[in-house]
């Protein structure tokens, strides 16, 4: 009997890895769950910390689908960045809170990844005030971008739009997903069942296919741009 029980346990353990179960989970179970329990996508960006020292070196991960999904469209995006290189440097210098900014084309998306200090809306607003034209040049090539440019005349809408394209940062602390779900649903009481955490994660990834895993990892404590510049004696 013990042999049969062992076999059955092994069978159950292996079941999720079988082709038939994988197929059923992806094509039947998850869509059914998603239909039964609609899930709100989590907003993007870092979770604001109550500790002032934690609010530096935040990550922004914008994934923006290009209108023109051909090689020509990707080349146009590449050209828009290259043509604005000097403005980007000037903008980074003047905004004063950005450590790094990178533009990457992945598939049919133009992506902007950056590391910045402080509040997201302040960062984007200061950037619009400094080099809004660069944002406009990039965003004009992106699906839905025409509704929010020129950024200088659509500041609030533009910031909301960028925020909506910023990836949700899945916390390293698994149960923080509950905190985020409660926040987005406006729930005030903790009612979630810990056993359903994997399902909640799968449903979130169902509505939010692109996410950031964690909020970025550093090899040293967080410092602001100006603190780094001051330490190196290069002015801030």
């Amino acid at each position: 009997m013990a042999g049969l029980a062992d076999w059955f346990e092994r069978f159950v353990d292996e079941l999720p890895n079988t082709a038939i179960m994988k197929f059923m989970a992806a094509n039947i179970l998850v869509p059914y769950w998603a239909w039964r329990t609609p899930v709100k996508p989590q907003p993007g960006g870092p979770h604001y910390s109550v500790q002032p020292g934690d609010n530096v070196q935040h990550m922004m991960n914008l994934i923006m689908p290009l209108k023109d999904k051909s090689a020509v469209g990707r080349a146009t995006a590449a050209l828009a960045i290259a043509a604005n290189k000097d403005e980007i440097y000037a903008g980074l210098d003047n905004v004063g809170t950005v450590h790094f900014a990178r533009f990457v084309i992945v598939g049919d998306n133009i992506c902007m990844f950056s590391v910045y200090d402080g509040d997201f809306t302040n960062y984007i607003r200061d950037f619009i005030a400094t080099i809004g034209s660069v944002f406009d040049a990039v965003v004009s090539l992106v699906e839905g971008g025409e509704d929010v440019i020129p950024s200088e005349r659509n500041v609030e809408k533009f910031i909301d739009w960028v925020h909506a394209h910023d990836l949700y940062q899945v916390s390293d602390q698994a149960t923080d997903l509950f905190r985020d779900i409660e926040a987005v649903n406006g729930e005030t009481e903790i009612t979630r069942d810990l056993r359903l955490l994997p399902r909640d994660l799968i449903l979130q990834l169902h509505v939010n296919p692109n996410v950031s895993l964690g909020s970025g990892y550093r090899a040293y404590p967080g410092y602001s741009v100006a603190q780094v510049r001051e330490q190196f004696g290069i002015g801030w």
Partner: protein
Amino acid sequence: MFDVTDVQGNILRGYRQPRVRHLILAVADATEARSWLGATVSGAGSVPQVTSQAPWDEKPSVCFNIGLTFEGLRALGAASSSLASFPTEFVEGMTARAEKLGDIGDSAPEHWPAPFDKPRDVHLIASIYAKDVADLDRVQGQALQNGRAFRLLGVREGFNFHGDYVHFGYHDNISQPRFAEIHDPADYPDPQPMAPLGTVLLGYPNNFEGLLWRVPDPVALGRNGTFNAFRVLAQDVVGFESYLTEAAKYLLTQRGVDELLPPGDEGKIGPGLSREAALREIVAAQMCGRWRNGVPLAKSPDTPYPEPPLPEEQLNNFDYPAASGCPYSSHIRRSNPRDAQIVQRVANNSRRLVRRGMPYGPPYDPDKPDAADAPERGLLGNFIGASLGAQFEAMCTDWVNVGLQDPRVTGSNDPLIGANARETGWFDVVLKSGNTFRLRSLPRFVRTRGGAYTFLPSISAIRYLGSLGK
């Protein structure tokens, strides 16, 4: 063409009335509430008339103003397209922005007393400004005579107990934005640039060159309106005063304290002060950026009683050059860095706010310690600006807390109003040489006890809201 008579009267000038009563209201019947709003434009049917910015020869004995929350606009029946045109921070409301504002721990909205424990019920805040309580009572009675329009959820009442002094013992209300379009009879010298009208009114250019804030739809509703962060801020005066003592005792043990206060100079800080008492006042001054009598450290870093004396009109006549006597860590420099070098170079002057506040609760008497059940004291603050996100929130998130504007304060919070905690709070007392004494275990002195983001509609907008559904 800017029409001053279209703007509510508490935005571009302060009434300087000694008392205020804020009525926190929920719309009970939308039709009745709209009629009431329409009547406030003219004061018809003995409903109190909203005070506008129209010039007066003689100050009225009572002033009356209203602010609406997003839920209030919805309850009044504003169209969904109109509601959608308001900025996200206003739509979400103050409680949803708690972490950004430092409303955490015992300042978190879940600890706010009624009526702010149910933020979605707060629809309208009607504010009565008057000289005495009888006037407040009379106007409240007039405002609520039609019991069907609103439910009174709660009341917050403040009074100016000692001129422009606030509970922590400082002379306040010295610096406000000035506007080219508004005649300022006092016209005290102030090197700060005139604030564009768009700093506090929707529909005009603001401090960010080329940027325009969205005017909510329709224009009749949005234009000449503005936003207000109404805050109930409890002040722990006992905690503040005891921290000053703690700090002074610590400084007395430090080598180099003589640079901060040369022996024999105690009398410059105040007549008959001991060394410890003088150091307490120096710490209090560095925390604020002004001595308690309002004299700015930028003009008089060594004494609150400069010779010749600094007259009232000179209290705002300063900037922050590199060698300013005002510590970069002080409250007034953090919340308004004027022309100081700051990290966010485009942000100088962009986060300015009009502040209209009044203390509440009994004044602190150092000779009579508070009983355990002593009433709360603090400030009923209105922080007014055309963009809550670009002004009030921007100031709270990156400057008051975090301290991003200057690498020397990054990682610390405002010493007076910041979301400090004993475990992590610190403040640097700055010496002339540039050296600092770091004061640690800095607790939180100001707790949030309620509040709401409100829209302060223009007179035209109140008329418009009153006409909805007709």
